[in-house]
């Protein structure tokens, strides 16, 4: 999956939730991605996060961090 495309998708999601407080925004972004993204997409963006996460906006980066905490589980099912 094209990582630039995934980063953009994640940032678009982040732009909607950015109006919330930082922690809440991160939880909402995480929840949205967890609910709607195919595991291979999640796995790819988590890998990108581990590699520095270039391009990820503030709360989005925090959301991907939350996703990264459960990545082994996601990877197993994906």
């Amino acid at each position, binding site marked *: *999956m*094209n990582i630039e*495309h995934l980063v953009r*998708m994640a940032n*678009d*999601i982040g*732009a*909607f939730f*950015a*109006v*919330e407080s930082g922690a809440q925004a991160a939880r909402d972004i995480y929840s*949205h991605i967890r*609910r*709607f*993204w*195919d*595991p*291979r*997409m999640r796995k790819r963006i988590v890998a990108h996060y581990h590699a520095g996460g270039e391009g990820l906006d503030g709360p989005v980066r925090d959301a991907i961090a939350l996703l990264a905490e459960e990545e082994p589980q*996601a990877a197993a*099912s*994906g």
Partner: protein
Amino acid sequence: MYAIDYIDPGTPPSQEAEQVTVEIDGLSVTVPAGTSVMRAASQLGTQIPKLCATGSLKAFGSCRLCLVEIEGRKGYPASCTTTVAPGMKIRTQSPKLDELRRGVMELYVSDHPLDCDTCPGNGHCELQDMAEKVGITESRYDVGGKTHQGSPKDTSNPYFAFDPDLCIVCSRCVRACDEIQGTLALTIESRGFDSKVAASQAESFLDSECVSCGACVEACPTAALSEKSLIEMGRAQTATTTTCAYCGVGCSFKVETQGTKVVRMVPNRDGKANQGHACVKGRFAYGYATHPDRITKPMIREKITDPWREVSWDEAIEYTAREFKRIQAKYGKYSIGGITSSRCTNEETFLVQKLVRAAFGNNNVDTCARVCHSPTGYGLKHTLGESAGTQEFSSVMKADVIMVIGANPTEGHPVFGSQLKRRLRQGAKLIVVDPREIALVRSPHIEADYHLQLRPGTNVALLNSLAHVIVTEGLVKQDYVAERCEEDAWRKWEAFIRDPKNSPEAMESVTGVPAAMVRGAARLYATGGNAAIYYGLGVTEHSQGTTAVIAIANLAMATGNLGREGVGVNPLRGQNNVQGSCDMGSFPHEFSGYRHVSDSAVRAQFEAAWGVSLEPEPGLRIPNMFEAALDGTFKALYIQGEDMAQSDPNTLHVTAALSAMECVVVQDLFLNETSKYAHVFLPGSTFLEKDGTFTNAERRISRVRKVMPSLSGLEDWQITMRLSNALGYPMHYNHPSEIMAEIAALTPTFAGVSYEKLDRLGSIQWPCNDQAPEGTPTMHVGEFVRGKGRFYLTEYVPTQERTSSRFPLLLTTGRVLTQYNVGAQTRRTANVAWHSEDLLEIHPHDANVRGISEGDWVGVASRAGETVLRATVTERVQPGVVYTTFHFPESGANVVTTDNSDWATNCPEYKVTAVQVVKVDQPSEWQKRYREMTARQRIERSDKKVTAA
């Protein structure tokens, strides 16, 4: 002429609650107050002779045939214009009435040809019937006298002809155009004996303002206005009730047939979605079903550069199954997927998603709703609790204020558009939010109170400023919000929207709409009585499509405009079964009934019913599939009835992704654009060739009934079933009713739905279950489906698609009345008489500075691609905005659109593309390649002849 099985009550029903009992010919009957004597008699089975009256039109009282005697009253009143009164005693037959009626009929017959045997109306002509009924076979008047016979016929319309010789000047056609369609294209020209029907200013029907809805043809009591197919084929023998396969209105029709040949389609006057009306597509444009371009034999090819080879069904199915198994063995089980179609039935879409989940073993299923109304599903589910519109269409007749946002009902949903116009002519107020001056803004007897002509891409800014006015000017329905909505979320939203940054004044520079107009529109919406919002793809197909849907729901909740008739949030669905395909579990993250795949209890139900273990993780959406294909991890796709190479944005990206796959299977009626990249073609069936159900935009489930055998030998659900069996996952259904039984067993909102009940009730609006055994016309009555309604914050986020010096104009796209979606069906009908190519609308100012004149070829270039179209210069678009349709593949409208998409659902941003437009003298490079590729498509017929597709 109305349908052959219709019994005409003569006048429309009364809506009054009070009941009145009268006596007609000695028999007692009780009817609503306001009912005509004619209709009351019909209820007793007495058909009073008539000519100018029909059940779909207001009583006119001109023909003087329907006279009756009423005890205690003088004279012989017309039964169509006389309403019942308590205790009234009516006689419909007497020697005097017979004499009067014979006198009237003699006059009609004296000016009408008597060659009934050769007339297309023979056997179904009301004049003929009435003459027989009153005992007239000839006239005392001199046939050599002055008559209207010998007048030239008007055959200009491709679908119907007007023969003035047969016209009795009853005005039913004129009244149908006025009252039902609302175009007011017809009139009675001249006076007295010279009176005659005329279209517009005595123009031909084709050149006039007539929109060819056919209401006049159906209203005509003789064969003066007749379908050409009826003239050619003669009267049908059978009428079968079915549902239209075009837009999301889902009109009910009577298909009249001779054997397996369709004579004509007549709207069903008992159809609850359309109430006896139709449009030029549904009524007339069914000829594609038997068009020579139909592919009726399965075909395969190893490479997309090979010619197609016709094969047997067995070979095609075995080849596909073998390829899918090979690819999954090589690339993994997540490397294949399927697409369901909003043009197929509920049963067919349900089977495709079942095939993907149970036989493919993954959740890589999506549907064409991805590119139209997926934001509606998300937005309404989160705010109100259900992914569907809240009302039935007839609810609009109780609306006092109607707000139309990003929709063009008179073009895209014409039958609902006509109903909406009826309500507007009764006095309802209208707010139009649209970058273009759509017809509703100003047309005969219609004028919008506000046209908020915003810049493309600024819906959310505008909706927020409307809400800001409502909140800051104290127009919120506080008691409703307190009782029905989540308090914390409301308080948060109220504070957010109150911020001056959301005021009309602050947003004026963004939207381009004067603040005073926004304030006026907001006050009207909030205080004008029942306020209903109708919206379309102009809301959803944006990077903030979901945000806009949420903002609409916020507006409706804040003003208490949900949960009763006359109000609501109403998405106008583009295709006939968009609602149904979404309901059936076509999205990769949810099962039927919008239940997430991660819900273990729901998954357990499906696993028990289907006998397999199911994936708990969401699969790929359509654009994700393309990305994965380009990434090399997605290799095969089963596409039922969708032409993504034409309909999806950024064509070059789509075709590159399709080209990267090893097995693309297209199941369709024609060799469409996507099939150019396919390895297997499975010939599908039209709606005339199968049984099933469609669900329209008002959640109405209606039957589709087979009137002719499938030309390919298999209905679409049978093809999916055979593919599943070949893959080793058994499916055994004998009839779509068995599939519906499975849907009902697994889907709470469909629990009470069955074919038996559909046959009995005609149609059902879901939810249909123990709590609502006959369905739910209005949702969220008393409380929202989710319990308390939830406000969400809707910050305006500008699209990343911006104009620049290189791309200074904004392109937005849409539809026209006579063509449908990618045009695969309507391009193969006589509808091309009205629209034979896609045009680029450009404002005179923008045209002038570029040296562009009407009809010039212009290049349209964006960051994604370039195409060439012919220009039409018009003030319908504002300066800085250009507009086109996407009905013809060679136009390449989606070569230009980008892959920007909605944040929540990835619905493409079709409505905002920055472009430059210049005058050119040759096709674009893409169009040259397109023509070359089209020319290369070949079929090796089984009889060895090689033909271009």
